[in-house]
Every structure is written in C-alpha cells, then in structure tokens.
C-alpha cells in the first residue's frame, strides 16, 4: 500500500528527472537561503518540493540553468512536468513554481586573469 508521502517522493523523483532532461536546465539546486526538498522514508529529493492537495500536485522546482530566456525555459519545463504527471495518472498537475537559483554563463565567462 502506497501512502501519500511515498507518492510525493516518487513524483518528486520523476519531476527531478524531467527537469534535468529539459533543454537549458543544467542541474537541480536545493534553494537560495533555504533548502527545499521532498522527504520520504530514507530518501530526500533535494530541490523539488511536491505536495498533493485534493488530488492536485503542487510543485516547486529549483534549477540551475544555462544562459537562455527564462520565460521560454520555464514553459518547456512546466510542459514536461505536466506531461509526466498526466502520464503517471495518479494525480493531476497543479501549480508549478519554477525558481532559477543560478545561471551558468559560459558564453560570458571571463578569461583567466593575469596581472602585470
């Protein structure tokens, strides 16, 4: 028998995988100034907080991204999460909050400094 907390952890893991597969997302962050995660027995999914309320899944995802337009990236991520939740079928997608905690600026990286 699966309890709500087990489902939350499973969904959080699914969402984390979807996020990491989304173009432009480099990593999952655990949060700025506070740690956000989904906790289950013996397992913690950091950076993804899932709460199930009346069959709807509320999701908070913290991500580290490559330099890209954030609105488009978050739309892609939301669609991916909604798709995986619908496919899972046990719950319905609710609010999905996307937090961009950091950005890797490879194209803008400053060359190594030298001093003379």
């Amino acid at each position, binding site marked *: 028998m699966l309890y709500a907390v087990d489902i939350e952890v499973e969904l959080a893991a699914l969402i984390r995988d979807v996020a990491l597969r989304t173009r432009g997302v480099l990593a999952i962050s655990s949060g700025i100034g506070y740690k956000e995660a989904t906790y289950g027995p013996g397992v913690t999914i950091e950076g993804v907080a899932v709460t199930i309320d009346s069959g709807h899944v509320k999701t908070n995802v913290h991500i580290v991204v490559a330099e890209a337009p*954030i609105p488009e990236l978050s739309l892609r991520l939301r669609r991916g999460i909604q798709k995986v939740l619908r496919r899972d079928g046990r719950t319905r997608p609710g*609010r999905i909050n996307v937090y961009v905690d950091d*950005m890797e600026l490879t194209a803008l990286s400053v060359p190594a400094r030298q001093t003379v």
Partner: protein
Amino acid sequence: MNIFNRILALLFLLLLLALAVGTFGLSVGLLSANAFGRASQYAPLHHALGDLGHLHPQIAKITTVAVAVVVAILAAFLLALEVRSPRREKELILSRDRQGEVAIGYSTLRKIAEKVSLGEADVSRARCRVSSRKESLWVKCDVTANPFADANHVGTEIETTLRNRLEHTVGKPVEHIRVKVELAEPGDRVRVR
C-alpha cells in the same frame, strides 16, 4: 529568514532583553526577588534572585551591571533591526499566474550584470546591483577600467550589452541602467587578456 525563524529570533531577543533588564534591576536594587511573583516561590530560584541583589565584592556587582547593560543594549538593537528593517527580496518574480510562478534570484541577476561588465574590454573590476521597480529592472554598476580606456565608451558599451542581455534573459524591460566608470590609477595592476 522565513517567518518562523523571524518569530523565533524575536522571542529569543525579547527573552534576552527581559533577562538583562531583570538582572540589572536586581543588581542595583530596583527590583526584589518578590517582584518575580510566583516564579520566585521556587526556593532555589528565590535564593538565586536574592543573591543577585546582594553581590559582594563590589567589583562583582559592577561587572554584573555592566554585562547586563551591554546585553540589554545589544538585544534592544537587534530587536529594533529585526522589527524595523525591511527584508530585501531574494528573488525577482518574473511571472505569477494560475499555473504558478517563475522567479530568478537577484544574486543571479547581479552575477550576469557583473560578468557582462567584466566581458567588456578594459574593465578590470565590476560591482553591480539589480533591483526591480514595478514591472521593470533597475541596474547600477560601478566598474573600474584600465587607466588609458575611454570611460565614456566603456560605460556606453556596458549599458547597451547589459540591457540586451538582461532583457533577453528575464523577458522584462530594463528601465534604468547607471554605469559608473572609474579609471584605475596608472601603475595599478591591470588585467591582461
């Protein structure tokens, strides 16, 4: 700091302030152990409170009063800071609707602004601050350029690049950019690429 932590901090500081004021009052004789009501009916506490009123030698009394005053001032100062200071937002909300919200950390925006500034030729140091007013961004950057650079040109270049880069990334207009360019003194260490 979230609301729970702030409440804990407030309670702790209030308790600290009360203890310091109580200790001060007892030490200088403004309060007696009986003033603590039912709490002082607990014998060991009653004795301890009574002892505070009869501290010997004099140096012990002076030290206790001084420590109590310092702790009280510190607690009151921290309490005032905690109550009065507006908390700076950590994240800029890019959108908020029925589907949820999208936010980006101000630290990330600052990082972009500083990297963009440092990406310009002749710039050796950059410190930026990004804030939001209504639906637009405000950026302030202080940069240091090489002594022989054209400060005007450097400032304009940074402004243009920064505006494009931030608007492209967050999808919000940048209403105001202020870039202050300071030229390094000749002889200062210069970054070479």
